[in-house]
């Protein structure tokens, strides 16, 4: 649960969300010792920040692939709407 082995920053959104879920569930059960519940709580805060960060940078940018005569691949931003 509180596997500090996995730094939150490296987690995918999905994993972070799943862990946050389990952290909250554990806290809600109320069976976790106080010390551990504080640790869990802090871990949960970190996970939440991570998740929200992942949700925040929602840019809608479209890049169209271009191919040079030699087959090299490039890109140019386009506006398709």
């Amino acid at each position, binding site marked *: 649960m509180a596997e500090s082995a996995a730094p939150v920053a490296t987690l995918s959104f*999905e994993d972070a969300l799943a862990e946050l879920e389990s952290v909250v569930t554990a*806290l*809600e059960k*109320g069976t*976790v010792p106080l010390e551990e519940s504080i640790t869990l709580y802090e871990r949960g*805060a970190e996970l939440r920040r991570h998740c929200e960060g992942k*949700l925040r940078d929602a840019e*809608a940018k479209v890049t169209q692939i271009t191919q040079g005569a030699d087959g090299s691949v490039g*890109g140019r931003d386009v506006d*398709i709407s």
Partner: protein
Amino acid sequence: MELFEDSETGSNAPEFTVSELSGAIKRVIEGEFAHVRVRGEVGRVSRPASGHIYLDLKDDRAVLAGVIWKGAARSLEIRPEEGMEVIATGRLTTFPGSSRYQIIIESIAPAGMGALMAMLEKRKAALAAEGLFAPERKRPLPFLPEVIGVVTSPSGAVIRDILHRLADRFPRRVLLWPVPVQGEKCAASVAAAIRGFNALPAGGALPRPDVLIVARGGGSVEDLWGFNEEIVVRAAAESAIPLISAVGHETDTTLIDLAADRRAPTPTAAAEIAVPVRLELLAAVAGLEERRRAALARGLDLRRQRLRDLARALPRPEALVAERAQRLDGLGLRLPRALVAFTRDRHLELSRGAAGRFGPALLARSLERRREQLLRAGLGLRPQTMALPIRHRGERLAALGDRLARAGAQRLQAGRGRFEILARTLGSLGPEAVLARGFAIVRDGAGAVLQRAERARAATSLEIEFADGRLTATPADAPPPSEPPAAPKAKPRRPRKPKPPEQGSLF
């Protein structure tokens, strides 16, 4: 009648020979149908050794004979089979010699579901045998891709639908690889695009997509045919990046759909599959956040409450001390006063108590009490109460007195009689009477009665008692008396003891 005759006889229409007419027809037909495409089902097919192919094209009402000359037959893309729906391209011609017309087919292509599906099934079976469609090859799609690669036409509704749906759900970085989505170059372009995305290095100038969408709008089976091509199917199956196919409408199934990790019924659906709804996720995270805070707060509240309860049960140390300190102070203040008061009280008690308790008043009280008791007892002691018992007792006493007097008199009388008898007997038996009859008693000097002569001889002096008195004698052969005889005064007593045996012997 006239008219009939007129028409019969008066016609001025030109007359053709059969050959002329047949030739005219041939010119018309070959001129009018020099290049036609005709769709029909292949009927009877014959392949004579000449190398030409003869076949019939038909539909439900008509039959058209056809021929494929040897040269054209060699370059056919497909091998026409009976029952196959085809589109034949060629020209019409006639056989004047037998009043027939036919189509000379230059190219023939499958048309309609029958043929295409047969081909499709064949290809599908071959690719499936290779395991390209196996479920275990399917990879899970990323839950939230950062970059989405789209392979489709840059113009048209498809890319717009995808972008709009992405914007609605979760705006993402999109890489669009433009391809023709139908026609000769479609398959090769799509395959190249899929491989090209996979070839993008991670962390390069162009971000490598986390998921691919290969999309095309609806169209005929032929329009979508490019997505059935083996090259496309292989590229999709080999893609390291998870791939969503969205080709045609939901009812259209192409082979890329089978090779893709996920098939979307429409391009819009592909966008929905590719990304979750951002607002829902935000709400979910917010919900979890709320629960997280509440859970900890509740946990802390519970513990706080428990602590409070326990603390309440535990007396406060300062209260403990304060109370005792106060008591100590109070006692300390009272102590000197208490001492003073105590001694004063003792003094008072001593002075007052000694006089009070041990004085005459105390005695007087006791006396008074006893006097009262005596009085009460005296009150009960009335003569009336005593009279009856006294009288009774008086009577009994009188009776008893009478009885006593009588009994006493009788007893006295009887006693007296016996006494006299006894007295007489005694008188006759007593030593005095014996002495009176002339006997004497001899005693030695010590007063002992002597009954033998030898003892009398041993005695120094003898006392002889007679009825009328005593005399002292000395035996002749006895030593002289050393002492005078004892006074006769106590004699009557002494002889009484030895008397019984003397009497016994006398009797």
